[in-house]
């Protein structure tokens, strides 16, 4: 290699102009090669992850010593107790309901608060206030999620929720949901603000000139015009909430139960995987494999959400462009 490179260098210096052109082509070619290679790397990684998920999931459903496990039982079963009892039960619905409950609480908290904060930042705040608040939000976005988990466990639940009602346990869906909501708040807020600020100033002027007040302009022109971006922000944030692991593993509890009661403890899909991989489940055991089936389910849900988001965005775009 070095000798070829050295020879090439020598030839280049001899052949002068013509050579430098071919050297340039070589350089351009290698750049393209590198870029294509790096792109392939990320594509292949994704494909490999999905392949492993599918393989292990299929393995879970076809385990010879567990004939009771089937796709139908998995997706319709209402009990999830893989570790306890004589007969482990793999009905994924409690995990899905736990995940959706926490996500719904997070969304109910973060979407209105985030959107209104974005409206304030984009329409009402002075440039100075906006700069300060945006840096505060960036700090919020940089907090490790384990800290939010502690926050839920040691502040939200004991000081905010338990004084309201005694039914809240140490671990509960509400505390975890609010903490997840705080975690996704910066995403909702900053993406929505981008969408609102992208609304052309000429539209605001047009509305003011018709005698609209600031509130009219915001509510009847700016938000409708920026709606597609706001919806995209919501979906991205909710997808992030569904996949959140550390907060729910710490604060939501470890009991998989099919409930819509936010004062109860729930187990989310991610929290179950943490439990399995932190414990000493044998690598070929049924619990170990079940976590892959759960992971695959989670993947399907987030994939569907992203897909729905893309369709909604496309429809709004067609409407407005």
């Amino acid at each position, binding site marked *: 290699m070095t000798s070829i490179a050295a020879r090439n260098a020598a030839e280049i210096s001899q052949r002068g102009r013509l050579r430098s052109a071919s050297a340039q082509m070589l350089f351009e070619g290698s750049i393209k090669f590198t870029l294509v290679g790096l792109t392939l790397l990320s594509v292949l990684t994704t494909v490999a992850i999905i392949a492993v998920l599918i393989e292990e999931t299929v393995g879970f459903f076809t385990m010879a010593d567990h004939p009771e496990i089937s796709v139908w039982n998995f997706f319709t079963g209402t009990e999830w107790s893989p570790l306890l009892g004589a007969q482990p039960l793999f009905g994924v619905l409690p995990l899905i309901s736990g995940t959706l409950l926490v996500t719904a609480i997070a969304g109910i908290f973060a979407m209105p608060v985030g959107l209104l904060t974005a409206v304030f930042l984009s329409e009402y705040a002075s440039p100075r206030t906006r700069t300060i608040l945006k840096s505060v939000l960036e700090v919020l976005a940089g907090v490790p999620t384990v800290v939010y988990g502690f926050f839920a466990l040691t502040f939200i639940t004991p000081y905010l929720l338990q004084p309201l009602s005694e039914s809240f346990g140490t671990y509960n869906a509400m505390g975890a949901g609010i903490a997840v909501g705080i975690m996704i708040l910066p995403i909702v807020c900053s993406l929505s603000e981008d969408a609102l600020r992208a609304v052309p100033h000429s539209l605001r002027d047009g509305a003011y*000139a018709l*005698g609209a007040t600031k509130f009219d302009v915001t509510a009847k022109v700016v938000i409708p*015009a920026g709606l597609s971006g706001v919806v995209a922000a919501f979906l991205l944030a909710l997808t992030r909430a569904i996949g959140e692991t550390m907060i729910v593993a710490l604060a939501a509890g470890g009991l998989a139960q099919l409930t819509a009661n936010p004062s109860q403890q729930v187990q989310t899909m991610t929290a179950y995987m943490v439990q399995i991989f932190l414990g000493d489940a044998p690598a070929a055991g049924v619990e170990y494999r079940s976590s892959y089936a759960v992971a695959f389910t989670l993947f399907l849900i987030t994939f569907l959400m992203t897909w729905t988001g893309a369709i909604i965005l496309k429809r709004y775009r067609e409407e407005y462009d």
Partner: protein
Amino acid sequence: MKTIPLPKTNMDQSTTTPTSSTSAPTVPVALRPPSAIEMNSLSAWYAKNQVLHAIDLDIAAKQVCAFIGPSGCGKSTLLRWLNRMNDTIPGARATGKISLHGVSLLDAALDVVDLRRRVGMVFQKPNPFPKSIFDNVAFGPRLHRIYSRTDLEELVEQSLRASALWEEVKDRLSSSALGLSGGQQQRLCIARAIAVGPELLLMDEPCSALDPRSTASIEELIRELRTTYTIVIVTHNMQQASRVSDTTAFFYEGKLVETGATDLLFTTPRERRTEDYVTGRFG
């Protein structure tokens, strides 16, 4: 909060026909002030930068007045004080006096919402809202609740007829306004301004983003609208000023150089700078 006691014209009859010149104003024309707008030593600033110097100008009712002058001469700024649009710009302030039918527009206690309802504005670039054609025109009436529910459709139709757009869009009122051509969009913006029943229409270079054909249709529309509205138009195009306006005001470096009947100002200007500008020697 003060409201402006304007003469009752089409504003309060917007449920009838905004374009009809036959509908008699409830205040006889003879009793009106001779001028719709009077400005006395109006000066204006953006932060510390003075852009208008002691302007004295009267604008007659139901006529078209053109503001001409080179870029940066302050003509758009002046226009934007007539509906207090400059309020949205931090650091903009003005001294002196502007009155619209005797009501002082620079009064801090003035209700700008009410003012802007009575002073419509059309911008340089067409700026329809990303809503349907119908919702664009209905935006103002809905905002001010100046319609009874059954009248809204009629009001939208009348406004679109007045802006010569009705025939082109009557079959697709619910489709997006953004699908219209530039000229149609600008006429839609005029319909949107007309729909709240203004007394005065401000147009800030309304044709500068349009092709010649659309420009011709807007100019024709301006000539029609002048029977109902007082119109102030800012333009860079001197042919346009001479085609559409009754009076012209020439501004240079923030000062009003000359004003008068358009045909006189273009043929026999009193000032040397006016002559140089209208003959294209600078600008």
